[in-house]
Structure formats: C-alpha cells, structure tokens
C-alpha cells in the first residue's frame, strides 16, 4: 500500500469527507438571481442537453427539482448533494447526479452551475479531478462568463477567480470538549478559512461536525489552492484534533469514557430519539471508536447510521416514521436494532 493510501485511510478518525465545489456562469445570460424565468429555462436546457464528450461513461441523471417532492428534496439536503437554499427555491432548476453520487451539479443555484464532488475520507485529488472533468467537458460546448482580470465571474465576489471552494467535513469533538474550538475558529479566520455547521452556511455544528473551506478563490491557481488545502490546512486541523484527544484521554479519561459509554447506553435503550439527539450521540460513538474506547463497531457503520437517522432518510427506511410526528419512535427502534448487533459483547460491556 502506498504512503498516500495509508495517509488517506488513517485520516478517517477526523476527516469525514472532502468536497470540491466549482461555481460557473454561462456567458451572455444574467446570473440566476437577476435572470427572467425564460432565461433560467434556457440555461437549464443548455446545460442539461450539452454533450459531455463521454466524460461520464455511466452518465448523469437529471432531477427536475420542481417535480421532486418535499421529502425527496430533503433527502438530497441530508446527503449534502444540494444546498438548503437550492432545495427550498421555486425557480426552474435541476440537479445532475452521477450514479455513484460522487458528482453533483446544481443548475440555477446562486450561480448557473455549482459543480460539486464529495468523497469520503481525504480523497481531495480524486474529488478535484471529478469536478474538473465535468467543468472541462461542459466548457467544450458552452462559454463561461470570464474576465481577463477577475477570472470566472460569479454572482458573489467571494467566489470569483478560480470559482473553486475546497472543503472538508471534520469531526472535532475533542477540540469542542476542551473548549479549543473557538480558538481554532479564530485561527481559521486568520488563515482565510470559513468554518461552518453540518449543513453549510448558516447552520449549526450538530454533533461536532464542522465544514471547513477556503475563502480565497482569487490570486492563486487551482492547483495551488488544492495543494495548500490538502497539504497544509487539513493536516494541521487533523493534528490539532488528535493532540486534543490525546490530552483529554491523559488528563480526563473518566470524563471521556463516561461521555462515550453513556452515549452508547442511551442509544441502546432509548425508546424515543430526536434527529438532533441521535446525531449528537452517534457523533460521540464515532469519537469512542476513533479513540479506541469502543470495539465491535466501525466508523463506517456509525456514518451510515448518522445518515439513516435524518428525517427524510428515516421516512424512506421505516414504514411507520412518516406517520409519526417526528419519527422519534421509529428512529429509536432503528438505532436499537442496529447497535444491538454490534455493541453487545464488547469488552467494556
């Protein structure tokens, strides 16, 4: 196994997923917010019918967002495939989705195109290549709004230049428990990074999951931005969280054990579970696994559960969830069943 592969795997204790987002606008049209509905339809037609030169052998499926149900739209938000703003909009808009869900393209978001690639773990290079291949394939047939001085033009001046945002969903429980997170947020600001919540801009960091992304998109090449984020930003934050974990375990082990085992116990016996409570408790289990306090359970299984306990996902899985007001009964049942198989018989129980 190569060093890079080992590094990729070993980061999963902190790095949940990575994301590349590319903002593009078609030349000759007002940006989405200023365009008429007819112009928005035209943009939609141009993008969804553009030949992509075989860049995606498995193709892209186009989802008409106005025909999708509220639950389907929520499902896409929970998978981080569309922004809340996009899900709630009523403008003519569509989502292009690769079959592996690793590539998504929002048409008529704030910009005409928001190409997005999300991959689990630290596979930033792969995510970058995926987003770039779509960007370039489309660029073969349509003209993007471009300015010799400002680069790719975007509705918001914070995205101009390369139009690329590199992001990582990080699990930072130790920095949160030790009270260091505010210091990290301040340091991140100095490094021109944005730190946001679970569902992006304007949302809370539920379960100590934080989205970190670059704020500067002008004045550096795409490769320089990628290199900086991959080789400096992520490793620094990973190291910071790991150091905090080590210190907490050395100085406050009973406190951490208590948090982890209480979370496991609650999840195993709870009869009613809200989505936010479940997310927080599962986050603590994730922390327990990555610090070696919990066995017989994997991070992947917890990740899966973290998705399944979200309202729209739960409604898809559990037949009774939709009839309940908040799905709390169904959610508790789902978690009890899932953890019963894994946690019973672990060395600590």
């Amino acid at each position, binding site marked *: 196994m190569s060093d890079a592969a080992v590094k990729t795997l070993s980061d999963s204790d902190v790095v949940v997923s990575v994301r590349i987002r590319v903002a593009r606008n078609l030349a000759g049209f007002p940006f989405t917010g200023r365009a008429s509905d007819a112009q928005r339809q035209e943009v939609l037609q141009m993008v969804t019918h553009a030949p992509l030169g075989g860049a995606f052998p498995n193709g892209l499926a186009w989802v008409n967002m106005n025909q999708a149900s509220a639950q389907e739209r929520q499902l896409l938000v929970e998978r981080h495939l569309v922004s809340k703003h996009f899900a709630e909009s009523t403008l003519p808009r569509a989502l292009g989705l690769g079959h592996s869900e690793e590539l998504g393209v929002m048409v008529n978001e704030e910009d005409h195109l928001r190409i997005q690639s999300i991959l689990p773990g630290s596979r930033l290079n792969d995510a970058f290549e995926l987003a770039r291949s779509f960007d370039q394939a489309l660029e073969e047939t349509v003209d993007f*709004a471009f300015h010799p001085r400002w680069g790719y033009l975007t509705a918001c001046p914070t995205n101009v*230049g390369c139009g690329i945002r590199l992001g990582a969903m990080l699990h930072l429980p130790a920095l949160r428990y030790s009270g260091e997170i505010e210091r990290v947020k301040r340091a991140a600001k100095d490094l021109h990074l944005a730190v946001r919540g679970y569902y992006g801009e304007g949302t809370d960091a539920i379960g100590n999951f934080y989205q970190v992304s670059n704020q*500067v998109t002008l004045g550096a090449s795409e490769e320089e931005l990628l290199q900086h984020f991959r080789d400096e930003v992520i490793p620094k934050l990973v190291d910071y969280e790991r150091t905090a974990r080590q210190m907490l375990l050395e100085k406050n082990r009973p406190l951490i054990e208590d948090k982890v085992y209480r979370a496991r116990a609650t999840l195993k016996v709870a009869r009613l579970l809200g989505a936010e409570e479940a997310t927080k408790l599962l986050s603590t289990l994730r922390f327990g696994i990555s610090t070696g306090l919990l066995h017989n359970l994997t991070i992947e299984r917890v990740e899966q559960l973290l998705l399944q306990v979200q309202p729209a996902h739960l409604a898809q899985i559990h037949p009774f969830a939709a009839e309940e007001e908040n799905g709390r009964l169904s959610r508790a049942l789902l978690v009890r069943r899932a953890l019963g198989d894994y946690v019973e018989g672990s060395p600590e129980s």
Partner: protein
Amino acid sequence: MKCDLCDKPALVHEVVIQNGKRVEMHLCTEHAAAKGYVLPTVPVMQMLQQFASTGKAIKAQKSAARRCEACGLTFAEFRQTGRFGCAACYDAFMPSVAAIIERAQSGAVSHRGRTPKRIEGQADRAAIRRQLVKEIEAAVAAEQYERAATLQGRLHQLGMKTNPAADPPTES
C-alpha cells in the same frame, strides 16, 4: 472681554466709524442678536462637518444610483444583497468593485488560475494593463501607496510595464 451692555463675555466685536469717530463695539450673543446681527447658531466646525457630510451624502447617492446597463442592477442593490446581476456588473461598478473584491479576497488583485480553452490566448492583455495602470494612478492620487505597490507588483508579474511601449509584444 465683556459685553458693553452686560457682564457676559462678548462674542461680537466690531469697529464702526460714527460721525468721524472710531467706535468699538463688543456685544454678547443676546445683545448682538437684539441689535440685528445675524449670528451663526451652530459652531462653525459643526457647520463645516455638516457641509462635508452633505457632500459625502450627495456623492454616495450618486454612487448608489449607478446602474449596470446590461442587467439594470443598481450599485445600491448590489450593496444590499452582495450579489451581482450579470457579468457586465463587474465593469459597470468599477472601481468600487475592485476594492470590494480585493478586500473579500484578502488583497488578491487578479486571477492566476486557468483560462477557458475556448478563449485561451484571446484574453486582452492590453485591457488588463490599461485597467491596472488606471488603478495604480488612482491609488497614488489617493495616497494609497501600499495598494499602488501591490498593483505594480501584479503588473510586473504579468510581464508588463507601466508604459505600454516598453511591453514585450504579445504572443499571438
């Protein structure tokens, strides 16, 4: 000095010639007003500040009323939403836009990433230089020397000189 008619301090001083005689007059605010002198009711600095800010307000109104001819967005609307209406807004609202972008982008002054293949080689170097030179001049005039130096640095980075004649010919 006291008022000629009371003990209050005199604020109006006047020398008048009456019947060939030189007469000095020193009056407090009230007595001066009573004698028909028009007095400023507000201190002069405050008046000047008001005047200055009125000037500013007029300038701000003018700037807010600027409009992008392509999409109709006004600068005031942009300030309110932080979103441009179309690609042409970037040029329509110069140089305010340049300052806003540079601030949002931590001082970066121009794009260094890739250029779309379809327009590669067509990017108008002369236009970039003209724009940069114009902004350097504006920065120097406003005594923003640090900003002028950054822009000058960018010009050199692009292999350009302030004087267009000194530039190497553009590759076609």
